[in-house]
């Protein structure tokens, strides 16, 4: 029997409902308005009144409207067919909606309930299984989409029956499992999971030990992100957050990419779904769209669904992680999500924290980031969710609550700097402010040294020192004038420019330079570092700057040339010639 209720108050999308029975925190309900039903979530309960946030416009709603509580929290529907879809924050399938306008109260199935899939069993009758164990798989694009023991199952189950290899409907029972009390549970290809609850169907979550390549030198070489790690990109508008995230989503070495467009421009989402079906995945050669899911809650869509959108995205990520895949989740922008929390907290008349954000903002953010991770699955295999969020700090000032709270939660920090963006030094990731905590992890250091040779982390640290010293030298030059400082200062400055122009800067609109594989990054980085380690004498600062300018120009041509092509070798020889001048 579902609990019912009646609307007794309305302020914008916060509605007060008088309840006639038990309700739960975060329970979903529908409010009747004429012949449509508006979806809402309980966010506070006081006496017999439940306060619900409505995921739609409440225009026209008055007291007395009937409410029906659903007995469940906001759930994601998980099953084969999620990839390539474009969902809104509540997991409605936007492609399947016919109207040009999103009519409120219109909800549809996240998956095609009539689809059929080629099922292959992975277990036998009598097997003992737990939540997250793989019962079988169906091909979803090029991925093996595992059909798992539902995450909500507690304790051990015994497989009573399992379907043979064959084609089945998504809603068909493909297995029956039985718990220790002898209760049978039929399993279909679909399961549901409440989005705000972390999926814990794994045995352990060790510290990350591998890196996740993005093809971006300023990240992979300078401040690598770990597979299963977390990072964030704060930056003022126009600093290139979105271009950077797009580049990562195109190039990253992950099997599933989830893009949560959270409160951002609709035209940017359009760009993704116009481009991705055309572009190739550099790792598999398949179309990028085949490994991508987009959760689009653009800035003009209902604010409360914005909060739901990041959780929906994370839940889908955890679902694919449980299948043993490397998942990368990108959210642009987490500030908009925080603002949605602020609006609701304000209407609930909670005492505000800094900048009117809710007091528990920091806790909410860190709980969310904690859902990422590299895990061991019940069958001993591994999977990961790597999370990268952008932050849009008000006025570009990093001393604001969302940036500060995120800094506590995320392990990588990629600060986009206005001054770098202004001088077109893209990506505008500040080399000195930014950091990756993973570089300090012994596990990661070991991986890096195995991949790139002993002393790699030490080399990276040294590169950062060169950049730092170059910056200091430049300050001296600017204060005292070109002539009044020793030529070594110019040498120091130009070495840092060399690292900046050749390694840190990267042209995301150039076909070759946009994606730099690790082998190439290693070669270029070691080359640049060997140049920096060399000692050269210059008679004056003009000779120094023109020498390094020539070097930089030639090395950049190498970046633009196809790897190990004739052209590439030609420029390499030119670099050697320039270097030989100062032997």
């Amino acid at each position, binding site marked *: 029997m579902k609990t019912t209720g009646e609307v007794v108050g309305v302020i914008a999308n916060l509605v007060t409902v008088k309840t006639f029975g038990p309700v739960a925190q975060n329970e979903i309900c529908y409010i009747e308005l004429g012949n449509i039903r508006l979806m809402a979530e309980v966010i506070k309960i006081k006496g017999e009144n439940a306060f619900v946030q409505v995921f739609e*416009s409440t225009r026209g709603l008055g007291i007395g409207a009937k409410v029906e509580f659903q007995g469940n929290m906001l759930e994601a529907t998980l099953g084969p067919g999620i990839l390539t879809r474009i969902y809104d924050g509540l997991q409605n399938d936007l492609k399947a909606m016919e109207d040009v306008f999103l009519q409120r109260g219109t909800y549809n199935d996240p998956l095609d309930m009539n689809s059929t899939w080629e099922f292959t069993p992975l277990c036998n009758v009598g097997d003992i299984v737990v939540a997250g164990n793989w019962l079988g798989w169906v091909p979803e694009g090029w991925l093996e989409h595992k059909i798992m023991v539902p995450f909500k199952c507690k304790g051990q189950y015994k497989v009573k029956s399992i379907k043979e290899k064959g084609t089945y409907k998504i809603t068909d029972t493909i297995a029956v499992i039985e718990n220790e009390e002898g209760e049978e549970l039929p399993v279909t290809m679909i399961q549901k999971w409440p989005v705000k609850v972390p999926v814990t169907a794994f045995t352990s979550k060790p510290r990350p030990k591998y890196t996740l390549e993005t093809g971006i030198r300023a990240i992979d070489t300078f401040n690598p992100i770990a597979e299963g790690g977390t990072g964030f990109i704060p930056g003022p508008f126009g600093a290139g957050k979105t271009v950077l995230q797009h580049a990562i989503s195109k190039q990253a070495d992950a099997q599933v990419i989830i893009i949560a467009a959270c409160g951002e421009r609709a035209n940017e989402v359009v760009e993704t779904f116009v481009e991705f079906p055309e572009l190739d995945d550099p790792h598999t050669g398949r179309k990028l769209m085949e490994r991508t899911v987009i959760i689009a809650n653009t800035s003009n869509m209902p604010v409360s669904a914005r909060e739901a959108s990041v959780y929906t995205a994370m839940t889908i990520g955890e679902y694919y992680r449980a299948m043993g895949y490397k998942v990368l989740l990108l959210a642009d922008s987490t500030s908009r999500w925080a603002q949605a929390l602020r609006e609701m907290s304000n209407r609930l008349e909670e005492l505000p924290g800094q900048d009117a954000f809710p007091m528990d903002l920091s806790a909410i953010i860190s709980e969310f980031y904690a859902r990422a991770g590299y895990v061991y699955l019940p069958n001993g295999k591994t999977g990961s969710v790597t999370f990268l969020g952008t932050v849009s700090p008000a006025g570009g000032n990093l001393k604001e609550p969302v940036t500060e709270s995120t800094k506590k939660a995320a392990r990588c920090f990629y600060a986009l700097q206005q001054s770098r963006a202004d001088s077109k030094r893209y990506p505008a990731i500040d080399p000195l402010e930014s950091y990756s905590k993973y570089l300090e992890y012994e596990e990661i250091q070991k991986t890096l040294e195995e991949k790139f040779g002993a002393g790699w982390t030490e080399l990276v640290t040294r590169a950062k020192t060169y950049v730092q010293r170059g910056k200091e030298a430049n300050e001296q030059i600017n204060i005292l004038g070109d002539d009044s400082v020793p030529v070594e200062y110019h040498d120091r400055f130009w070495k840092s420019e060399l690292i900046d122009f050749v390694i840190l800067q990267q042209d995301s609109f150039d076909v070759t330079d946009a994606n730099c594989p690790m082998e190439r990054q290693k070669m270029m980085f070691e080359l640049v570092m060997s140049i920096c380690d060399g000692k050269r004498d210059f008679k004056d600062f003009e000779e120094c700057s023109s020498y390094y300018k020539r070097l930089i120009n030639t090395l950049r041509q190498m970046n633009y040339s196809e790897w190990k092509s004739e052209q590439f070798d030609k420029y390499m020889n030119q670099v050697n010639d320039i270097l030989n001048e100062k032997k």
Partner: protein
Amino acid sequence: MSAFQKTYTHLTALTKATVTLKATGAANDELAKVDGRLAQVVKINGNEVTLQVFEGTNGIPTNAEVEFLGHSPMLKVSHELCGRFFDAYGHPLDGADIQGEERETGGPTVNPYKRKQPSELIPTGIAGIDLNNTLVSGQKIPFFADPNQPYNQVMAMVALRADVDRIILGGMGLTNDDYLFYRNAFDNAGVLDKIVAFVNTTDNPPVERLLVPDMALTAAEYFAVDNNEKVLVLLTDMTLYADALAIVSNRMDQIPSKDSMPGSLYSDLAKIYEKAVQLPSGGSITILAVTTLNGGDITHAVPDNTGYITEGQLFLRNDSEIGKVIIDPFRSLSRLKQLVAGKKTRRDHPQVMNAAIRLYADAANAKTKLENGFDLSDYDNRALAFAKDYSERLLAIDVNIPINEMLDTAWKLFAKYFSKSEVAIKEEIMNEFWPKAE
């Protein structure tokens, strides 16, 4: 809603902007008349209903008559809108009522999946826009301008030159003089039948402004969605709109966030700007807005939130070298320009644009050197001379030439002041377009 609407005559609370009364059957966002003034339901708590009175509550007695109208703000849409000026409520300012279908303002959102990628160039004749920051149909872009800059003139000029089917003006807090300026400008250009205007002047109560963008965009949707037209919406001044939001939120006892603005400012502005769209049927809504700055401060909450929402911004700047207002090539940005530059325009466009801006930046550096008392090289002097010409002949807002002529002008200036290697454009393009010696 029932046809019979009860009249209430007992207010239980009054503030500067709101009245509260006991009433049944009121709906959220519904309009009402309080003592003859238009008001809107903003809060329902049991049988207590709070209404926001747009004109303010001066002189309203506790026994004022309150009558609920049974609907939220509406606009009558039809081709009779054309050539007419309306107030914030959609009532004609210039004569007889119009006939048309009544539509609720502030309607639903376009499904992002149904949007088309903007790809049509909107030429304006202004090189600071067409050449450097190309406007694309379905784009939303504001002018960031100081209050003393001639942004209304520039907007009117852009509107009149732009190749669009319909121009919708949403004026918020316009001075009466500026309102008359727009009227005359449209009238003199003989394009009044292309125009629809919704105007809230400084003579009107500030809170009324909140209705203007929704009115303008409802009209825009009628022309773009129902009639597949290319519509250009002008919104001036969005900072004054935001100020009105702050007033209301303050009076509703909401906790302010940065710069005393409501916490929902981003969503409030996004709801308006995201109405810009390229529709699958061919119609489009392009939004050109004005955000006035306080002393050029773009970190203030209004320009800051706007920058995160819009697809770029256009900066106006007084260039003392030539004594004219120019569109600043450094701080201005059109995020959609790469969708048309070199694709819908001549193929040398992106390269010419970048080279000119780079050389202009060299001039800026030379100028700094000069100001700091350092000697200038020959190159610096040529860069400075180029910058002056470039500013005068291309960046100034009074320039009005077709886009190919802008490109040709840029090439002439390159050849006049620089060598080919200094301009550093792809060789193949250079060979085709570099002016032949005469």
